[in-house]
């Protein structure tokens, strides 16, 4: 191993650490934002005691989770019981490395050009889908290993739901792949630049975007698709028996999944880091261009996160048979239809 490879590996490790830290911070504050916004929707205040306006609440929560007693059920399957939250969190975090957080830009006063992507490879979209599909095991194994019927029901529901909606999710992305002609996320974002923002794939593939959003909510087990943890029926679903830090890991995984799903929606449909008119004002490759683009990317993600919280405050939960009917009989045919429409569009206007 020569010094160049060693330096590369070191740089990647630093980049991964920075990205994970930033994302975890954003996720922690998403939890706070959710509690405050839900409070606003329901006509109450929400947590506002720790720090100015409740801004330090996530750290108080973290401290509480760390200090609480960690209860392990007597008849649980020990190894799997410990493995499940680890799988859930790891699978949620692992997709983070392929997203383009911003364009390549030049560091001021030097000649160094930095890409705001940790890893770039040919099949990054498939990588994201693959890792997401492995994330199901966290929930399934948690439900099984707890040796509790409510947990088991939650785990079974979660896996059935995630398998069903993964299909519609994957199909809704095919239109984007057809439009871009590549599976590389960085290239997909590049394809959407120009036309002052009118080239985002949402305008060419709107039906696919709607289907993706619905399927993504179901994939992350959020309201109105939160049947795996429906508290009126299943106590707390698959994480009924989990406490302290292990529960916190599931909680974290859910919010990281929300974040990554929003990130994928932004990357594929809303032009990723492309901000309309940013290129004309700052010029491509400058530091300010990089900064504005990265902030634009973050803003789009925050919009999606807000949408999630808004939905949670507004919609009631589905019934399980409604969920399955909706997934297989409505979402799947419409996903196929959206592929058909987009393919026809590309066939008619090949220069799009």
């Amino acid at each position: 191993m020569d010094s160049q490879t060693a330096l590369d590996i070191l740089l990647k490790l630093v980049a991964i650490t920075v990205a994970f830290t930033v994302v975890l911070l954003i996720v922690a504050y998403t939890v706070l934002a959710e509690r405050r916004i839900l409070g606003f929707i329901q006509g109450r205040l929400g947590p506002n005691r720790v720090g100015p306006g409740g801004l330090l609440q996530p750290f108080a929560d973290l401290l509480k989770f760390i200090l609480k007693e960690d209860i392990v059920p007597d008849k649980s399957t020990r190894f799997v019981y410990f493995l499940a939250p680890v799988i859930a969190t790891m699978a949620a975090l692992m997709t983070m490395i392929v997203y383009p957080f911003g364009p390549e830009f030049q560091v001021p006063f030097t000649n160094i050009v930095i890409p705001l992507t940790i890893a770039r490879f040919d099949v990054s979209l498939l990588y994201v889908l693959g890792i997401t599909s492995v994330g199901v095991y966290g929930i399934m194994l948690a439900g099984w290993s707890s040796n509790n019927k409510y947990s088991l029901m939650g785990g079974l529901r979660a896996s059935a739901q995630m398998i069903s909606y993964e299909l519609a999710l994957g199909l809704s992305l095919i239109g984007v792949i057809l439009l871009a002609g590549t599976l590389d996320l960085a290239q997909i974002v590049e394809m959407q630049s120009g036309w002052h923002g009118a080239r985002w794939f949402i305008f060419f593939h709107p039906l696919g975007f709607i289907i993706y959003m619905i399927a993504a909510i179901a994939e992350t087990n959020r309201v109105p698709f939160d049947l795996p943890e429906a508290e009126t029926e299943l106590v707390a679903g698959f994480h009924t028996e989990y406490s302290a830090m292990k529960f916190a890991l599931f909680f974290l995984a859910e919010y990281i999944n929300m974040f990554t799903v929003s990130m994928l929606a932004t990357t594929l449909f809303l032009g990723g880091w492309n901000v309309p008119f940013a290129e004309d004002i700052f010029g491509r490759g400058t530091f300010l261009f990089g900064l504005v683009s990265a902030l634009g990317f973050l803003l789009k993600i925050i919009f999606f996160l807000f949408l999630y919280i808004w939905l949670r405050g507004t919609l009631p939960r589905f019934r399980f048979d409604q969920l399955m009917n909706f997934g297989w009989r409505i979402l799947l045919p419409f996903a196929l239809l959206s592929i058909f429409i987009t393919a026809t569009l590309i066939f008619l206007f090949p220069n799009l």
Partner: protein
Amino acid sequence: MLALLFLLFAGMAIGCALAVVAQRNPLYSAISLIGVFISLACLYVTLAAPFIAAVQVIVYAGAIMVLVVFVIMLLNVEEEAHQRQRLKFLLPVAIGLAGILIAEVAFILVTVQGTPATSGGLTHLDETNVGLTQSIGSALFTQYLLPFEITSILLLMAIVGAMTLARRGMLSPNARVVPGAQVLPLSMVDPTVGHEDTRAIETDSTDEAARLLGVAELRDQSKRE
């Protein structure tokens, strides 16, 4: 570096594969099998075939094994008891087959020198993009179109076959199941009809089911008896 990664992932794959066979709990075997698939995917990445690696994870680890684990959880298969080994006579056969396999690998390692690319087998291909999506896609839809289509039809047949097997003697496809209600085939309330009639009804009590199916008198008789 590559050799190190190869040793790591190959070791993981072999370790997990041994665990698949050695574990008594079927769920542990399934988890080990997932480990095998993921280590294999990592090996594919080191072999410059990222597409195959991604598909390996999506299809095997993400779809097939989820169903396997789902079924194990649903049936709640208990730990296999120490049963008498009925297939003991196959042990020498297995050892013999394993010996042949190892001999084959050793033979290949000894006789084949150099990779196909250097010995002139694959020179027309640029080895840097063999494993990429585009080259696989264009090969699949031009050169190997017929095998591709035949495989698709084979999979379709498997799905249709599974559906026909699962549907046999079940509710009619038009039957709607409402939670909290029971769906009863006619044969359950009226044994004289036999199992051929699979007309389904929608109700939440056996009495109402009997009335809807027009066998209320029959049921009243049997109650009185």
